């Protein structure tokens, strides 16, 4: 969706250093500690003074997408980020973010807590990509606040999963707000735990949650997708996993709570393996078994 090079990122953090915070038209970008000091109104979101992280304030219609890049470069770095993104009313915004380790065996720890506030009538498309090393540990905890008539398409992709990852994404939707959530994980030698919760708090709010996992060797996946209808909203949960190895363990849990009799929520879940028929078909087209499996897996992850 957007360029993913650190060289062109609006915001770039390496280990615990803010390397770049390049403001663009309509977008104010600061390190979180500076936002706490210079903009006291942000304190209600941070709760306590942050030591690291970023603050992005989209005040007017930006002319181009916003892109952030967070890297771990040094061995055994521990990141503890507190991020805040506020998007003012009636804007259309595209955000891209990459969090990654710059080599495979750094044993880093990436802790990120964030709040994304989308004000009335704004539309946000947000793609968040993780690419970690084999020994990293990642804990990511985000909350999204959607004001009336706002919309969010949020896609999280774990392209290279770390040793252990714990994701939490919570969405609070006011009247007529809409969220479409896609969580995509390609897992090998990883313990992946994901919880997403969509709270339909306003009348006619709606949510869709799509979870797609590829479970390769020695992966343990536990993903809970939860929809809580407090108001008369609609929603759907769709959890699917494709198992590629007998050592993989997967648990997918769609969970629905309805507190309003006008709400309508549906869910589905499936865990399966590569179909022999598809595999043979592609091999008869000249692809090797590994190439065919990779193709089927990449197709499965497309939503």
């Amino acid at each position, binding site marked *: 969706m957007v360029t993913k090079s650190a060289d062109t990122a609006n915001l770039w953090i390496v280990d615990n250093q803010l390397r770049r915070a390049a403001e663009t038209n309509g977008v104010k970008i600061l390190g979180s500690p500076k936002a706490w000091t210079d903009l006291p109104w942000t304190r209600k979101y941070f709760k306590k003074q942050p030591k690291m992280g970023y603050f992005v304030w989209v005040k007017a219609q930006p002319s181009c997408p916003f892109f952030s890049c967070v890297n771990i470069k040094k061995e055994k770095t521990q990141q503890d980020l507190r991020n805040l993104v506020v998007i003012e009313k009636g804007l259309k915004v595209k955000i891209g973010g990459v969090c990654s380790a710059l080599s495979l065996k750094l044993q880093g720890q990436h802790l990120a807590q964030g709040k994304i506030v989308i004000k009335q009538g704004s539309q946000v498309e947000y793609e968040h990509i993780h690419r970690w090393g084999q020994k990293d540990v990642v804990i990511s905890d985000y909350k999204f606040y959607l004001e009336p008539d706002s919309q969010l398409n949020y896609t999280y992709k774990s392209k290279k999963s770390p040793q252990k990852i714990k994701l939490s994404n919570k969405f609070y939707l006011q009247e007529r707000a809409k969220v479409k959530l896609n969580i995509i994980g390609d897992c090998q030698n990883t313990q992946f735990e994901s919880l997403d919760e969509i709270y339909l708090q306003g009348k006619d709010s709606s949510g869709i949650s799509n979870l797609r996992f590829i479970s390769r060797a020695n992966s343990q996946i536990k993903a809970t997708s939860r929809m809580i209808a407090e108001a008369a909203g609609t929603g759907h949960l769709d959890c699917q996993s494709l198992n590629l190895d007998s050592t993989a363990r997967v648990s997918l849990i769609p969970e629905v709570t309805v507190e309003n009799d006008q709400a309508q929520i549906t869910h589905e879940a499936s865990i399966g393996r590569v*179909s*022999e*028929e*598809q595999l*043979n*078909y*592609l*091999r*008869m*087209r*000249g*692809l*090797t*078994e590994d*190439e065919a499996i990779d*193709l*089927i897996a*990449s*197709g*499965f*992850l*497309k939503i």
Partner: protein
Amino acid sequence: MLQIKNLTVKVDSKIIIEDLTLFIKKGEIHVLLGPNASGKSSLAQTIMGNPRYQILQGKIWFKDQDITRLSMEKRAQLGLALSFQEPPPIKGVSLNQILELIRQKRGHKIKKTKQTEIELLEQLPASKKLLHRNLNERYSGGEKKIAELLQLSALKPKLIIFDELDSGLDIKNLSRILKVIKAQFLSKGVSVLFITHHGQIVDGMQPDWTHVMLNKKIICNSQDYQKVITTIKEHGYQKCRHCQFVDR
């Protein structure tokens, strides 16, 4: 081109092809007729190397190479291709994507093969949008065949097996597809084996050989397609066992 000698095949514990012999020379058109469940599609899958079909006896040669134990992909690389009756849908993979992969694997000149595909699409009742849709997902009968033809064209095969080409096609679309098969493959010396349970698809094509498969075996080989098809139309397949007209 293709030689099958004394082939016996089982699936799970059931024999599905018994002592089957078949020869197809370069550029020949063969028709394999037979009722449902006689073993025709199983033969196609066995020729292509589907590991579910276990060869108990006999051998298969293709271009003078023993391919009896060769993997499916290596057979495809040698020039064997199958047009599926019911190709499986593959989510998230576009027709264009598989065509690109085939071209890369075959090492063909991309510009030239792409041009052939565009020409093919223009001759067929399909929109270019088909290229960007998920492979075989919610395709109509005609679209399935067109997608198969495009892949076959990219594969540049030496021998193609068409399994029930006419299934899901109306007469008009079947005739357009046959026209493309003639222009793209038959005129270029590609050998073809049509598998069908009724013979109309090869009317006007003058097949070199017609075979009838009944209950796991090829029971008849004839160079006179009209005689065979007339016999079947008049007496049904079971009468083929005692047919006076066809060559044994």
